[in-house]
């Protein structure tokens, strides 16, 4: 029995290891590439043993363009997260807690915004943005990202609010609290984990989004994923600098996730009340 247990344990660790390597290898390769010279990046067969240099990073940090796209991304991702939650959470609450005519229709309409691939909306977006004069602005890109994120926020949070035992809110009504007060003082604090989780997903989505950012922005408001692509030139691709700037862009997300990992898992796997 003991050996059976051991085999089971080894097998599961092996599977996890394979999966981890599968996931982490690209990041390792990115890191390795960022520490090579441009010549080494093109070596065939690929070099695993080399003398790491940090010149690429020095170059990147001194490049004002990189800082520009970095802050653009920060503004757009934060703005998207903030407004998606501000709009989506109350909407989810109303859809989850109040019965009214057309309730499920509204939920479906909100979800249906995700049924077409974003590229299908790109041309109408472009034309509209051109007419309104919000091409290449932060607010313009934030609006586009909110429209793609809102359904996610509404559907996840709606599930969260639905799982919340109704007695908790009913107690609050009986205690004399208004519907709005109950929302602020009871329902919102209880669903904090869910909001953090959804917020992280919004932030990640917006930080990584490429298509909308590529078409709807230019020099002024372009974000990290678009910025990185500038290292792909007409005649050569500067792999080392590209990798270094990509690493530079991953780091904030990485730190962010390390801090909020617990809440992300809690929020996505558990109900409101445990």
């Amino acid at each position, binding site marked *: 029995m003991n050996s059976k247990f051991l085999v089971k344990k080894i097998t599961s660790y092996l599977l996890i290891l394979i999966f981890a390597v599968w996931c982490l290898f690209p990041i390792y390769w990115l890191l390795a590439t960022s520490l090579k010279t441009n010549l080494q990046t093109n070596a065939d067969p690929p070099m695993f043993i080399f003398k790491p240099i940090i010149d690429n990073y020095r170059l990147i940090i001194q490049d004002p363009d990189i800082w520009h796209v970095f802050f653009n991304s920060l503004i757009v991702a934060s703005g998207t997260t903030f407004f998606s939650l501000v709009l989506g959470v109350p909407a989810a609450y109303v859809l989850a807690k109040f019965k009214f005519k057309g309730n499920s229709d509204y939920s479906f309409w909100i979800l249906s915004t995700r049924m077409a691939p974003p590229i299908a909306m790109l041309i109408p977006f472009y034309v509209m943005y051109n007419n309104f004069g919000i091409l290449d602005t932060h607010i313009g890109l934030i609006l586009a990202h909110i429209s793609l994120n809102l359904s996610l926020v509404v559907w996840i949070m709606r599930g969260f609010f639905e799982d919340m*035992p109704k*007695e*908790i809110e*009913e*107690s*609050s*009504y*009986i*205690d*004399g*609290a*208004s519907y709005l*007060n109950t929302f602020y*003082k*009871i329902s919102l*604090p*209880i669903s*904090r984990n869910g909001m953090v989780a959804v917020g992280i997903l919004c932030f990640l989505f917006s930080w990584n989004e490429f298509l909308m950012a590529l078409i709807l922005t230019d020099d002024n408001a372009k974000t990290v994923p678009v910025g990185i692509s500038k290292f792909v030139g007409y005649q050569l691709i500067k792999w080392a600098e590209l990798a270094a700037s990509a690493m530079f862009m991953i780091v904030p997300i990485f730190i962010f996730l390390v801090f909020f990992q617990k809440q992300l898992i809690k929020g996505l796997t558990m109900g409101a*009340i*445990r």
Partner: protein
Amino acid sequence: MDSKNQIKLKLVNISKKFDLTEVLRDTNLEVKEKEFIVILGPSGCGKTTLLRIIAGLEKQTSGEVFIENINVNKKDPQDRDISMVFQNYGLYPHMKVKQNLEYPLKINKVKNKEEIISKWASKVKIIEYLERYPKQLSGGQRQRVALARALVRSPKIYLMDEPLSNLDASLRLEMRSELKHLHEELGSTFIYVTHDQIEAMTLATRIVLMNNGKIEQIGTPQELYSSPSNVFIGSFIGSPPMNFIEGEINNSFFNSNNIKDLKVNNRNKEKVYLGIRPDDLKISENGIYDFKAELFSSEYLGDGYLFTLKLDEKKFLLKSQKINSYKTSELIPIMIDKNKFHLFNFDSGNIINN
């Protein structure tokens, strides 16, 4: 007006439909000041719905609710000045016990919050848990917190929805007596929902017995026990329940397969049930008996025996203080207490005055 007779709550023709299912039908009820009303009934009889309609958490399909003679149909739960204890307690999980108790006081801008909280917290014995979160408490402790939260205000009516059903037996017994004591001490109006007839019998000043969305009988526990108005009430109230024997009345005599010529005060010829409580049947020792029945089993209860007997392949119960000297399958001679039995119409189940 004498405050004791003041009408606290009045329900007029309350009906409730969920889609097409009717869960409450023309329900009428008057509750006076200081009453402890227990709404009793099997699960799904509409008793919780009725309580939620009183609280304003559910809107009735038709009918009127009056609290202290004011029509509250259009009022939200916030404006009805009631408090409620839920079956699952409904505590605020993100607040400590103290904040849970403080919340209704804050909302209603009550002064002397600290004083009131410590008064009630010590009364329901949770003073040492004030700094804990609900999830750090046991079921019984949570129950007390929920109770304290309902008590910190002085509402017009206290509503309770099966507040003891999640507790274990001994705790339930303890809380039951505490609730009864509290009711007398507070001198206020309680409306309490339960499916447990013992809870209802012990707590209520009056019981409202419900079945299938309508009120079957309203009365004191004694009234419901000694004069049930139909077969359902007889079988629901009392533990063990009432026995029913099928038979026929003819010329003021009741006859069944086994019982011959039992004198009744009813001349009509009709099919009936004879209802008799297990305590009102006796094992005959002098050779005079009304019928004989086969012993199926006997259970020792401490203060006596509970006999399960078989009559026409139907089981019925008899309670006796006497020591059991019979063997299984033996025929036992049995006497019916002539002042204690009831007759019910066979078809409608309603009582026949005899």
